[in-house]
């Protein structure tokens, strides 16, 4: 090839043709959801909200004066490929994606990244106290850490549930499910409940990781279970929401919707409110599963709802917040933040915090629906 000499026009034609082809391939490959970005929710302690940003950093925001602090950036074993596509916010995505909401306990903030590492940061200085594994990386983590009785529990992409010492990060036990675990564990007493892509909901003993029972659905489970008054409520990709006995895992009832139950449900006064990918929120009697009401959103409900007083607030993917009054089961449109919402909502002192994929923390007054000035999570480097 090196011996070839081209006329000016020939070379230009070849380069033009190749460029056009490359452009067609790249343009048609830029589809939504091609690369991990992250949808971490916020966790509040005192006047500080902690959230994992799309830059791969833990951000601490002072809710009083809006000052921000950033941890060092999480490191990845391999660089993410974005196929030349443009990421949210205009540029290519950077940093390790963080999906799980940080967990707070004592003076530590626990966080897991899509890089397959679990971190404990000091709450005041945001320095890494420990990380797991110390060498190498696990499979990507989408689940959020949960802290209870001095242990950190988390589901990982290798299909395992890990229990770590909350103070040192030493592994205490692990339990292998049959597939990926994105569901965030829920602890009730000495039992951990978690769903897996292998279609099962597991109940494990938090002391040693032994299985107490499991319940098989017909689809993968990404949602976290909801535990309330002797029942475990879990939604599945088989389009059913199940109510199970907390001790035996026996099915009490099931409710069929039209699409996946992606996120955790919420319960208020004997009613379970569950958002579905069919763009509806279902209000079900917690004891019998009877449908009390259904509410139409403008788009699927992917984020975890929050309770504010007598209301529960859901966000649609299109970025519209809806408030459901639990006393009369009536829904009103609360606010439109104008950008896609995928992560869980956080409520604190009458304000709803929504972290979106454009490195922004939006704030909405839960009472009036007024959209307050948002906070940028972009680091000041």
């Amino acid at each position: 090839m090196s011996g070839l000499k081209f006329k000016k026009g020939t070379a230009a034609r070849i380069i033009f043709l190749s460029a056009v082809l490359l452009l067609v391939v790249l343009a048609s490959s830029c589809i939504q959801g091609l690369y991990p970005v992250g949808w971490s929710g916020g966790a509040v302690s005192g006047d500080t909200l902690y959230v994992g940003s799309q830059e791969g950093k833990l951000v601490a925001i002072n809710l009083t004066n809006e000052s921000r602090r950033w941890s060092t950036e999480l490191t990845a074993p391999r660089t993410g490929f974005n196929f030349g596509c443009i990421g949210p916010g205009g540029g290519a995505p950077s940093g390790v994606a963080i999906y799980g909401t940080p967990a707070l306990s004592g003076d530590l903030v626990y966080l897991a990244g899509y890089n397959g590492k679990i971190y404990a940061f000091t709450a005041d200085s945001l320095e890494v106290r420990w990380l797991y594994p110390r060498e190498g990386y696990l499979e990507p983590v989408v689940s959020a850490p949960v802290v209870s009785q001095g242990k950190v529990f988390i589901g990982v992409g290798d299909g395992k549930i890990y229990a770590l010492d909350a103070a040192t990060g030493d592994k205490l036990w692990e339990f292998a499910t049959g597939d990926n675990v994105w569901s965030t564990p829920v602890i009730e007493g000495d039992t951990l409940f978690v769903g897996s892509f292998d279609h099962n909901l597991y109940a494990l003993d938090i002391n040693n990781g032994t299985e107490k029972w499991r319940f098989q659905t017909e689809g993968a489970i990404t949602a976290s279970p909801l535990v309330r008054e002797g029942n475990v409520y879990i939604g599945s990709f088989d389009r059913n929401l199940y109510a199970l006995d907390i001790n035996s895992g026996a099915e009490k009832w099931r409710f069929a919707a039209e699409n996946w139950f992606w996120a955790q449900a919420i319960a208020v006064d004997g009613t379970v409110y569950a958002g579905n990918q069919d763009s509806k929120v279902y209000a079900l009697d917690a004891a019998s599963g009877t449908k009390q009401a259904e509410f139409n959103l403008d788009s699927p409900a992917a984020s975890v709802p929050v309770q504010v007083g007598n209301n529960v607030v859901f966000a649609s993917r299109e970025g519209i917040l809806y408030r459901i009054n639990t006393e009369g089961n009536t829904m009103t449109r609360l606010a439109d933040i104008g950008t896609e919402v995928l992560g869980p909502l956080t409520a604190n002192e009458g304000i709803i915090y929504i972290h979106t994929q454009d490195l922004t923390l939006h704030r909405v007054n839960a009472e009036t629906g007024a959209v307050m000035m948002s906070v940028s999570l972009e680091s000041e480097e």
Partner: protein
Amino acid sequence: MNIWELVIQQPMINVLIVTSGFLANSFGLAIVVMTIVINVAMVPLTMKQIKASKAMQDLQPKLSELQRKYAKDKQKLAQEQMRLYRESGMNPAGCMVPMLIQMPIWIALYQSIMLSLAVAPEGLLNLSKYLYPWESVYTLLPLSRSFIGIDMASPNMVLALLVGATMWLQQKMSTPMSSDPRQAQQARMMLWMMPMMFTFLALSFPAGLSLFWVTSSLVRIAMQYYVTGWGGLIPKRVEETAVTGQKKYVKFTSDSERADAEQAASDIDVSDEKGLGYVKKPDKTRFQPGKDRRRHPRKK
């Protein structure tokens, strides 16, 4: 959903998912089967395209002759070219039209594979909006990404090299060496550039996409073989050894070949009269033993 998603992407995604359900939940096999099925469905168009490009290649010597003859008169050249196309029953856009019709289908299949793979968590969440209300579609997801030990969601070196190799093979078969030095250079450049470019792309795309490219190339190799045989893959017996300006020198592998060629040359009528063909005797035709054995002629 927009029209493109509703009419093209959504059906393809659902069929891909259901197909993988029938194939032991193997998404890799589903990609292979779907690529073959769509290729087979487009056989009439593809054949038309292959035949049209073959006819165009067959016409190439005459076109080159015209270019040489009317190098200084572009208008006349265009007229003569159009007349040649007309007389040969050829449509210059004959190879482009089937390709343009097929293009959206390929892009749709390619996008459907990427969407169904759901490489990132956002991708899986996004997938829910494309699903038909079929029981199997909901329960099969997320799809198994492993295929013969390869993670379909991550780039794979072996598949990337296969992408380049099969693409090169297919192009080599469909591109016979041209006697026109400019076209020969262009063809040689494209023969390497495209496979190299796609190999590079395959190294940064999920392996599922590479599998789609490899399967497509293999199917097209089979079709190309059906129409043209090995084509440009098997070199002709008479080799062109050197090209300098308008002069051409050939190396004959036997005396009988040389005698045949000389006899053929003496049979050629050279005329500027229209309609008698487009063959022009070279300005200087000679066989130079010894000198022509050199690969590159000595500069004067």
